[in-house]
């Protein structure tokens, strides 16, 4: 098994593992951020360049460093590879540049956007970006589309990560949408404003790292941090039926897949579960989802105090003793 060292931490990983996956096996803050890579989608990754790392030693046999930063999501590890991520200042600076490029055309409409609070680009720019934009020119502008009656496409916010295209290719049957045009005018679109009508098309919303594809049934209903995420399940003949429901009181505001800490869903869910089952009686609620303490979604949510078990027998004895005296 090849042994790789990432930020001075060594790990042995199976043959064919990418640097990003190896870093995720180690965990912690040395994991490079990823906007386009998605473990469950084949051939994803390699577009956004946020996961770049510096390879200072190619392998045991050929210890020459790689001349340029490489994308960790597409580069497989070699035995004896030495990788630098956050320990390399030059690389951190380079990633800042990448983030700035991603934000060039991204509008600053977070107060309006439904994704705000769970947006990967927001987190990424907060952690790695400049707080100011140096871009002075006009940003790309597109009309809003409806892809089907349940999904809204805001092309302005898209960073062309291709995740939704891979979902359409691999999860839905029959290719329904893709990227048309090239370069600066490239955009996600369906063929002549066709609607996407597929049982699993809703997963595009979950994979979208920004607010380009949003749930129309949740549109402007609430902000994500006011909703309470709960694990829930139901018997579904199309999908696994294991979802996260976002509650406000007893109302289900929206249903999403269960996302892990890298924002990837555990399993795809069907459109019936996502869009049509909005009654609390449709679901078996398992309990609150574990949300990272640093996430804005964890704001103003008070954990239930663990029921204290106090042994009162001893106090009773003391009381009786004092009483009898």
């Amino acid at each position, binding site marked *: 098994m090849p042994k790789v060292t990432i930020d001075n931490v060594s790990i042995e990983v199976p043959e064919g593992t990418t640097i990003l996956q190896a870093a995720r096996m180690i965990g912690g803050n040395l994991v490079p951020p990823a906007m386009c890579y998605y473990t469950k989608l084949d051939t994803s990754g390699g577009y956004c360049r946020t996961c770049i790392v510096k390879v200072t030693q190619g392998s045991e046999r050929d210890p020459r460093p790689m001349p340029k930063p490489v994308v960790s999501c597409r580069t497989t590890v070699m035995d004896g590879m030495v990788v630098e991520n956050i320990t390399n200042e030059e690389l951190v600076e380079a990633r800042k540049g990448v983030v700035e490029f991603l934000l060039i055309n991204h509008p600053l409409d977070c107060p309006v956007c439904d994704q705000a609070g769970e947006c990967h680009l927001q987190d990424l720019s907060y952690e790695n970006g400049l707080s100011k934009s140096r871009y002075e020119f006009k940003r790309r502008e597109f009309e809003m589309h409806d892809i089907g009656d349940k999904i809204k496409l805001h092309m302005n916010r898209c960073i062309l990560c291709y995740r939704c295209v891979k979902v359409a290719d691999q999860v839905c049957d029959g290719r329904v949408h893709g990227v048309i045009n090239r370069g600066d005018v490239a955009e996600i679109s369906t063929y002549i404003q066709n609607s996407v009508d597929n049982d699993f098309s809703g997963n595009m919303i979950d994979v979208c790292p920004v607010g380009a594809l949003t749930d129309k049934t949740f549109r402007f209903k609430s*902000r994500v941090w006011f909703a309470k995420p709960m694990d829930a399940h139901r018997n579904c003949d199309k999908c696994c039926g294991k979802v996260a429901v976002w509650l406000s009181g007893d109302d289900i505001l929206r249903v999403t897949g269960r996302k892990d800490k890298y924002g990837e869903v555990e399993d795809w869910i069907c459109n019936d579960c996502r869009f049509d089952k909005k009654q609390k009686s449709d679901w078996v609620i398992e309990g609150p989802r574990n949300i990272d303490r640093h996430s804005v979604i964890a704001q103003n949510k008070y954990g239930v105090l663990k029921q204290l078990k106090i042994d009162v027998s001893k106090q009773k004895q003391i009381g009786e003793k004092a009483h009898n005296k």
Partner: protein
Amino acid sequence: MLTNRSKVVVDKQMSFVEKLYLPAIIGGLFITFKHFFRKKTTIKYPEVKRELSSVYRGQHVLKRDEQGRENCTACGLCAVACPAEAITMTAAERKPGEEKLYREEKYASVYEINMLRCIFCGLCEEACPKEAIFLTDRIVASDFERGGFIYGKDKLVEPVDNDKRIDLSGRLQAHRKLNS
């Protein structure tokens, strides 16, 4: 003993003059009399008003922009920043034809501040990305019922008329001075 603040009580016998009490009473009255000629510390409130600090935090206002459109886009940052959880809101989508009423495609259809919960800390003003909510030097009026303290958009949004707008220029200037 943890502290040495204990006082020894002296049970001293009073002298003849002290026993008369009158000198002490006259001395006390003289102090009272002196206060007649001092500068008054109270004001006659409704007629005379005290000058408030330029950054005084009183009743909130939801601002409109120069064209009279509401600035608030119901992003919920004020509500999440509020330590007293006094702010609630419901968002709605702007319909075609309402562009003159609301600045962004989303707006707050309901915006309520519970003035009994509010502690006037000003964090909502700080959190607001749209320069929509500000605290002003107006004092929240008293009321006989609790329901009257839940201020909706009717009380919070400033009037459209240019001459009835809430002037915040002094406040903003003072803030800039503090921050610089």
